[in-house]
C-alpha cells in the first residue's frame, strides 16, 4: 500500500472510560483496526503519543471543567474528523444530572475544601463547544457501531446506523414487550436502537441511554407512562436519566414537571 494510514487519536473527558473500553473490547477486530489506522494518541491503549494533527479524533466524555472547555477547542483544531463517542459526549451523560440542580451545593456538602475544585455549573455535550462531525450514542457505545463508523470513514461511505426505535430490536430478538406485557415503564419506543435491547431482554424497561430517536411522539409516550407510574414522578426520572440532557428528553421532563406544579 502506498497511501498513508489515517491517524487516530482517542481522548477522554469527564466520563467513566467505558466507551474507550468498548474500542479495546473489540478483541477480534483490534488487529485489523491497528492495521488500518495509525494509532497516534490513545492513552488507554498505549503510553506512546505522537503530536497532531490527526485524521480522526474520537472524543469520549462531556465538558465539565474550564480546562476541558479549553482542551476540546485545541483538539478540534488538531483534527480533520471529530467523532463524539458515547452518551456523555453526545448529551452530557449521567454527570449532566447536575444541570438540573445546584452543583455548588453538592460540592460544598461532599468536599472539605470545595475551593480547590474547578468545575463548570453544567456538564455539556461536545457539540455545545465545537463542531462535531459525527455522534455515536450509547452508555456504553455499541462496539459494532464504532467499527461501522471507522469502516465507513476508511471506505469513504456513509455509516449504516439505525434511525429506528429500540422496539424493533426487541421484536427482532423475540423479546416480549415489557410495557404491554408487564406494565413496566419503558422509553424504548422513543429511544434510538443500537444496544440490541439489552434491558427489555432482561425484564427491565429501557431508560434511553442511546438517546431520543429523530422521529418520535414524546407527548403520546408521556401520556402512557404517567398512567403506569409506580411512584410519583417516575416518568420525569425516566427521562432525566443518562440521556436526560438531550433536548427532546430534557424538554419532555421540563413540561411534565411544570404540569405537576
Amino acid at each position, binding site marked *: 500500500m502506498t497511501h498513508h494510514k489515517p491517524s487516530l487519536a482517542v481522548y477522554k473527558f469527564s466520563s467513566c472510560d467505558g466507551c474507550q473500553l468498548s474500542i479495546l473490547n473489540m478483541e477480534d477486530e483490534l488487529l485489523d483496526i491497528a492495521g488500518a489506522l495509525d494509532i497516534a494518541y490513545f492513552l488507554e491503549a498505549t503510553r506512546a503519543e505522537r503530536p497532531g494533527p490527526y485524521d480522526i479524533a474520537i472524543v469520549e466524555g462531556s465538558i465539565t471543567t474550564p480546562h476541558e472547555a479549553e482542551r476540546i477547542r485545541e483538539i478540534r483544531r488538531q483534527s480533520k474528523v471529530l467523532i463524539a463517542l458515547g452518551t456523555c459526549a453526545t448529551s452530557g451523560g449521567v454527570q449532566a444530572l447536575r444541570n438540573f440542580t445546584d452543583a455548588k451545593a453538592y460540592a460544598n456538602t461532599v468536599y472539605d475544601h470545595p475551593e480547590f475544585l474547578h468545575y463548570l455549573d453544567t456538564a455539556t455535550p461536545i457539540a455545545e463547544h465545537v463542531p462535531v462531525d459525527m455522534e455515536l450514542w450509547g452508555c456504553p457505545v455499541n462496539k459494532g457501531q464504532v467499527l461501522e463508523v471507522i469502516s465507513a470513514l476508511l471506505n469513504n461511505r456513509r455509516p449504516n446506523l*439505525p434511525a*429506528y426505535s429500540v422496539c424493533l430490536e426487541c*421484536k427482532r430478538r423475540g423479546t*416480549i414487550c415489557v410495557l*404491554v406485557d408487564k406494565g413496566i415503564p419503558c422509553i424504548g419506543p422513543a429511544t434510538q436502537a443500537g444496544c440490541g435491547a439489552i434491558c427489555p431482554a432482561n425484564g427491565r424497561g429501557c431508560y434511553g441511554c442511546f438517546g431520543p430517536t429523530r422521529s418520535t411522539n414524546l407527548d*403520546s409516550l408521556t401520556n402512557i407512562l404517567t398512567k403506569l407510574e409506580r411512584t410519583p414522578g417516575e416518568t420525569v426520572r425516566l427521562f432525566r436519566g443518562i440521556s436526560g440532557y438531550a433536548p427532546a428528553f430534557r424538554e419532555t421532563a421540563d413540561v411534565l414537571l411544570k404540569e405537576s406544579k
Partner: protein
Amino acid sequence: MPSDRSPEIGSTVSIQKQIFNTLLEKLKAQGYEVVGPHVENETLVYAPIQKLEDLPRGYVTEQEAGSFRLVYTGHTRYFDVIPGAQSWKQFLFPSHANLFTLKKTDGAWEMETPRPTAPAYAFIGVRGCELAAIQIQDNAFLRSDFTDPIYRVTREKAFILAVNCMHPAGTCFCASMGTGPRVQGDADLTLTELEDVFLLNVGSELGRNILAGLPFESASAFVLNAANRGLERATLQMGRNMDTSDLPDLILNNLDHPHWRAIGERCLSCANCTQVCPTCFCWDATDTLSLDGNQTRRERVWDSCFNPGYSYQAGGNTRPTIHSRYRQWMSHKLGTWKVQYGTFGCTGCGRCITWCPAAIDITVEVADLRKEIR
C-alpha cells in the same frame, strides 16, 4: 374401539389427550423440530416443545388495547391460550437472514450465496387467523414469477397442526375477517380441544401418516356436536368486530381525511404493530463492510413502514410525518393489499391492538373514520 388403521383424509378422529405425546414423539422421530406455545419468563412465546406438559395448560391470556396479561386459572385445557406477540412468522421469515458475502481477490469480486437451510418445523397450535396469515405471506414470498428461497425452504417442509379457537380474546376479530375461529385453510391436522379428548381432523397425507397406528376412535356425533357448539359460541365471543363491507373504498377514498392526523397524535411510530403482525413482510438489507474494504456481508432484517429510514430516498422521506406512516400501514392492510393480492392483509388476530403501547385499535379507527364521513 380404538383403531390402529390410518384415518381417511377429511375424517375427524378423537384421541385421549395423553396420546398426543405419542404424536409428538412420532413427529420428532420423523425429524421434525416441534414448536408450540410455551410459558417462558412468565410470558407466552413460541418455543421448542417436547411433550404435552410443555404446553400452557391452565393459562389464559387477557388482551385489551395496549395490554396483555398471561393469567393462570388452573383449567385443564392445553390449547386455550390465545397467542401473544410472537407468531409463526419468526420461523418462516426470520428476523435476520444472511443473503450473501462479497469478497475481493486479485481485484475481482466474488459472490458467495449461502444455500438456505432450515429445520423441518412442526408448528403445534396454529390458529385460524395464523394459518390465514401464513397463506397471505405465501402470496408474497411464493409467487409464480418469484419465490423467496429462504421462506420457501422452511415453508415447504413445515408440518402444520392447526387449532380451532374455543375461547377468543378481547382483541380478536377473526370472525369479521373470515379466518376463524374455525380453521379455514389447509393444515395437516386440525385439532379441537374438548374437556376430555382431542378431536383431530385429517387434512393431508402427512397428517394421516402421523396418526397411523395411534389409538384413535372416529369422532362420535356427540363430540362433533360439542365442538360445533363451542365454535359457534366462540364466533359470538369475539372481543372486537370489523365491518369490512365498505372496504377498501372507505379508506382509499378518504386519504386526506383529518382523522389520520388525529391518529398521528397518539401513534408513537415505534413499529410494534408491524413487527407483531403475522402478515407484515417488510425487510431491509444491511451491508457490513470489512475495514480493508475487501469483504462485505449483506443481511436481511425485519423492517417497518413506521421507521424513518424505510421510505427515505434521494431528496428525503416520502412519508415524513407519523400520521402519513400510520395511513400507509392501515391503507395497505385494508386497502391496497386487496388490489395487490386479492385479500386483505389483516386476518383479525388482534396483535396490533394488544401490542400497541398507545392502545391504537384498528377496528375502532376504521369505525371512527366511517362515522366521521357520514
